[in-house]
């Protein structure tokens, strides 16, 4: 069993705050018309990214999704490069060519957000294969949503990982909706974790609003993977607090009603309270975290704003390594 130490708990708390604040600030900037494209906010689901990534080193890899900012922050990407990417600046993680849905940084073990639902899952299997073939002890975590678990890529990717016993962990962030489509109308299975049975691998459902629970469950799966015992499917039951994308009020499909009860379980508030009870983090210290994060956020935004736009010639580089 993976014990949650004070240091890890504080890291998780701060990471959740860092994710939340990144998203809140991005939304402001987006609504102010400063950011092009569109955004899918991770707010409400922070416990999943933070609880899982607490186990990962920079050499461990993740694949992410359209709703990927949370994973990036938790995996150690810096605000500067992330904001710069959202601002489409040259200093962004993808030089402004990728944007919100394609942030990546192989140096920090991020194999990319992905605009194709489910698209990262086979890639994660492949990265795990790569690690295995190279004899490494690292793992790959693939994040995706409940909706993604209906894509063929989910099936093929996990099946491959299971027959090859790859060091991969598949984390389904089950927020009950695929865009506007409630889970009950897009899959008839009781828990997404049950799908593990189709691959002969362990499947675990966990409370995705509780970072300690996520941390523990992920810890076991990741340890299994590191030991060469193969993949696990984790389902974290969670909820996005906002619409599918920034601008979607969520009213058309009952999300607005559903979300009310989930907000009462805000992972940051709940975990903050838990830490206070444990005497690991006082209310005042929470404010310090917040202030520190805010300062960092503003540095990130300033960095991005002050960064140059790409040159027109950048449009035609990075297509090939060599021609």
């Amino acid at each position: 069993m993976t014990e949650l130490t004070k240091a890890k708990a504080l890291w998780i708390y701060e990471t959740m705050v860092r994710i939340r604040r990144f998203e809140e600030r991005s939304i402001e900037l987006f609504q102010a018309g400063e950011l092009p494209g569109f955004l899918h906010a991770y707010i409400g689901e922070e416990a999943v990214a933070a609880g899982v990534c607490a186990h990962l080193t920079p050499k461990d890899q993740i694949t992410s999704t359209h709703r990927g900012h949370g994973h990036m922050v938790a995996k150690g990407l810096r605000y500067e490069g992330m904001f710069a990417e959202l601002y489409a600046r040259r200093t962004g993680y993808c030089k402004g060519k990728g944007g919100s849905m394609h942030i990546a940084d192989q140096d920090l073990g991020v194999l990319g957000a992905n605009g194709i639902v489910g698209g990262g899952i086979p890639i994660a299997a492949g990265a795990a294969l790569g690690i295995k073939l190279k004899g490494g002890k690292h793992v790959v975590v693939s994040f995706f949503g409940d909706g993604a678990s209906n894509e063929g890529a989910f099936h093929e990717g996990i099946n491959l990982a299971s027959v090859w016993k790859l060091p991969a962990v598949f984390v389904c962030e089950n927020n009950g909706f695929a865009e506007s489509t409630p889970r009950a109308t897009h899959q008839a299975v009781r828990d997404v974790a049950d799908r593990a049975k189709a691959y002969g691998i362990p499947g675990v459902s966990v409370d995705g609003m509780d970072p300690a629970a996520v941390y523990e469950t992920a810890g076991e799966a990741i340890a299994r993977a590191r030991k060469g015992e193969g993949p696990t499917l984790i389902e974290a039951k969670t909820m996005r607090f906002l619409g599918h994308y920034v601008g979607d009020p969520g009213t058309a499909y009952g999300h607005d009603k559903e979300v009310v009860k989930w907000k009462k379980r805000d992972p940051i508030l709940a975990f903050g309270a838990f830490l206070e009870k444990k005497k690991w983090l006082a209310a005042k210290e929470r404010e310090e975290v917040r202030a520190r994060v805010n300062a960092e956020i503003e540095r990130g935004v300033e960095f991005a704003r002050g960064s140059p736009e790409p040159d027109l010639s950048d449009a035609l580089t990075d297509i090939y390594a060599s021609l």
Partner: protein
Amino acid sequence: MREILFREAIVEAMAEEMARDETVFLLGEDIAEFGGSYKTTVGLLEKFGRERVRNTPISEQGIVGAALGAALMGLRPVAELMYIDFSAVAMDQIVNQVAKVRYMFGGKAKTALVIRTQGGAGRSSAAQHAQSLEAWFVHVPGLKVVMPSTPRDAKGLLKSAIRDDDPVFFIEHKLLYLQKGPVPEEDYTIPLGVAEVKREGRDLTIVATSSMVGKSLQAAAELEKEGVSCEVVDPRTLFPLDKETILASVRKTGRLLITHEAVQRCGWGAEMAAIAAREAFDHLDAPIVRVCAKETPVPFAPKLESHVIPNKDDVIAGARALLETA
């Protein structure tokens, strides 16, 4: 004539055909309560109910396969793929199944279905949400391919597509949805396989598809001021292709510019150029010019995106170059 949005024209076409023929039904991601990502199915759930306006799981192979299966049973499904980029997920069903069953089965198969999708750049949606892939589908015998450029065409062509007994791949452009234009109130259709001369001219022919039609008309208006008279032809359906209308224009003007939003290499414009170079060889006074996207994935940065996607000025520059060559 009343003016409505392109996306409203799409909704109307489906509403009318669904009212007219109860075998028509819709399936796709988030087309029900949500009314579609680009609001092209708004109100249809309320009108026709959940059986005929079906939200699907995120399963593009499933969507297209289900459409085909239902078509084989005599229904007329209209499947929506949210972005043309996602057609890649469903490519096997589209190409190996939908397009080929009639032929493989020796003609005994009902395949009256429409795959509606949305493509093109211009909203900073980056490389996986902004492609123009029509050439892939034109390359596949068994499919018909439609790319409307105006609300009027969109409605008339979609109605024809739904009534057609063959599979039709119907591509809408994301930037056109909010364009307004005159659309007749009475029932009408526009046949597949008939191009339209959107503007008459003498000096050169611009063959433009989808979003490039409007940009070409703007370019033509500017060029007019310089005394250059452009004819703008919109094929509207890429297959079947109305070669006659296009070639008649080329024979008249002797100069051809082809423009589309897809990347140039192996784009549909290559086929158009090859046809014109062959069938109007003696009438061409200058080499054919293609004005297409630069050969790159679509970048996120608006500055780069508008750099790689052809615009009015690129058309004007192409036209000038075309007129300068002997």
